[in-house]
């Protein structure tokens, strides 16, 4: 579904390559997490996959970017957005400001594409049901919480029938409730067959939702693996990403020989419960 081959990129008027020889393959219908320290190039990579680089930001891009069968550099941005959608950090800045209700806001992208009114109405209803926001349709987009606004932003992308959705730190400006709301919706999107690429700092939640995780550091996708193994990898500390409290606690327990040295470190509470139960049972015996 996504195939990046030997991609390097430098912003205009600079010789510094933010990304260097990046390779990435994403299978259809999967959730891919990408983690990296601040300034590691996550937003740049998100913009490359979604076509904003080179179509808007310019700069020097080499290598090949193919999404949903389209070579992104060869199509216009308007065409690229029919293959891949982008959700950015600020829910507020994704509201067009041109629409009065959430219903109209969702239809904004379809209006731009000249979709017939009846089809627009049907697609608005369908996407609102998929994301569980039917109750918000008649409200003003500005009267919503940050989490609800971010769901509207996601729905505004999904409604355009994009098979791929790139989410660039979609919960960085949300409270815990809003963050949970956005992550919960990812399951519905995956079930609907949408391929997700999520750039995130929240490792616990990423562990629960991502199938595979890549690490962006030193201008490259430096490591990758199944979400639990990758997010518990001790090298994440070195790359400035850190670890979850469950990983840290289990690692400390392992160092003190309280856990087996072969035990797989947990990342989330769901991972940790069986590990600590096993430990408690062993201790009790």
């Amino acid at each position, binding site marked *: 579904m996504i195939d990046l081959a030997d991609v390097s990129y430098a912003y205009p008027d600079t010789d510094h390559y933010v990304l260097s020889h990046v390779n990435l393959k994403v299978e259809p219908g999967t959730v891919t997490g990408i983690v990296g320290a601040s300034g590691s190039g996550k937003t740049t990579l998100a*913009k490359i996959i*979604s076509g*904003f680089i080179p179509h*808007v930001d310019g700069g020097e891009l080499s290598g090949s970017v193919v999404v949903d069968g389209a070579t992104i550099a060869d199509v*216009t*941005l*308007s065409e690229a*957005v*029919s293959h891949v*959608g*982008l959700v*950015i*950090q*600020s829910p507020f*800045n*994704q509201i*067009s*400001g*041109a*629409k*009065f209700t959430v*219903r*109209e806001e969702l*239809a*904004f*992208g*379809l*209006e*731009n*594409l*000249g*979709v*017939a*009114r009846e089809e*627009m*109405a049907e697609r*608005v209803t369908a996407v609102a049901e998929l994301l569980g926001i039917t109750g918000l349709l008649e409200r*003003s987009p*500005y*009267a919503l919480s940050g989490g609800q606004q971010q769901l509207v*932003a996601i729905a*505004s*992308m999904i409604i*355009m029938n994009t098979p791929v959705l790139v989410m660039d730190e979609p919960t960085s400006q949300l409270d815990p409730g809003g963050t949970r709301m956005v992550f919960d919706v990812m399951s519905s999107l995956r079930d609907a067959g949408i391929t997700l690429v999520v750039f995130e700092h929240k490792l616990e939640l990423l562990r629960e939702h991502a199938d595979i995780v890549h690490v962006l550091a030193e201008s490259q996708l430096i490591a990758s693996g199944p979400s639990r193994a990758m997010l518990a990898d001790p090298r994440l500390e070195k790359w400035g990403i850190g670890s979850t409290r469950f990983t840290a606690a289990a690692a400390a327990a392992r160092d003190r020989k309280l856990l087996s040295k072969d035990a797989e470190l947990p990342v989330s509470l769901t991972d940790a419960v069986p590990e600590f139960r096993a430990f408690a049972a062993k201790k009790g015996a």
Partner: protein
Amino acid sequence: MSTTLFDNRKSVIHRLNPVTKLIALLAIIVIVFAIPLWWVAGIIIVVIVVPAAVISGSGGRLLKLSLRILLPILLVLFIVQGLTFPGGTTVIWQWGIIDITSEGLLFALGVGSRIVVLVLASMLLVLTTHPGDLMSALSERGMSPKFAYIISSTLQLIPAFRVRADSILLAQQARGLSLKGSPFRRIKIMLPLLSPLVLGMFTDVEERSTAMEARAFGSTAKRTALIPVPDSTVQNVSRWVLIVLALAAVATPIVLGLL
């Protein structure tokens, strides 16, 4: 939080097609500036702007917002023109070397009444027209959606600017910034706050433009509308009448020899 000044009501004025209101505003501006008689502006305020504001139900907000803009302008205008109008001979008040002339005050009245009409009518348009409806209505008439968006988003700029300025100010006050003191000192303190304000606005604009492009805003397809902006034959005729009136106003001073 809303970023527009739009006052959501169901009045007849609110329901008018935005293009009708825009043409009415432009026609009023042309008329008051083309005819050099202060009472023409007065009549327009009394007969058109005030009744429209009352019917819209937004009269209170209009008065409050307009006074904030108009009071300093009118005060400066009357003081400066009253005191310094060249050729003023009829002194109506004198104090030391200061003379206030009736010619100066009349000139200030002429300019001031036009500014009052301009501000009141523009603010009424902003209060009774949702930017999105204005954008849709202009796009339906063939205007480039990008240009239409620039016009409609301008209406949103002031509240968004104020919200950001307030948060920057609060952040600085939390670090001990004091706004007490003379007006000069306060201006001096506020100046360094401009750079985060402007830079922040640039970031917002970039993010907003990315979000808009991700929703095919740059598409060249013929746009459709989920909910079309209502229009009527009566309004269409009214728009042409307004255009004719504006043109007649331009011709009137020439015909009557008022110039």
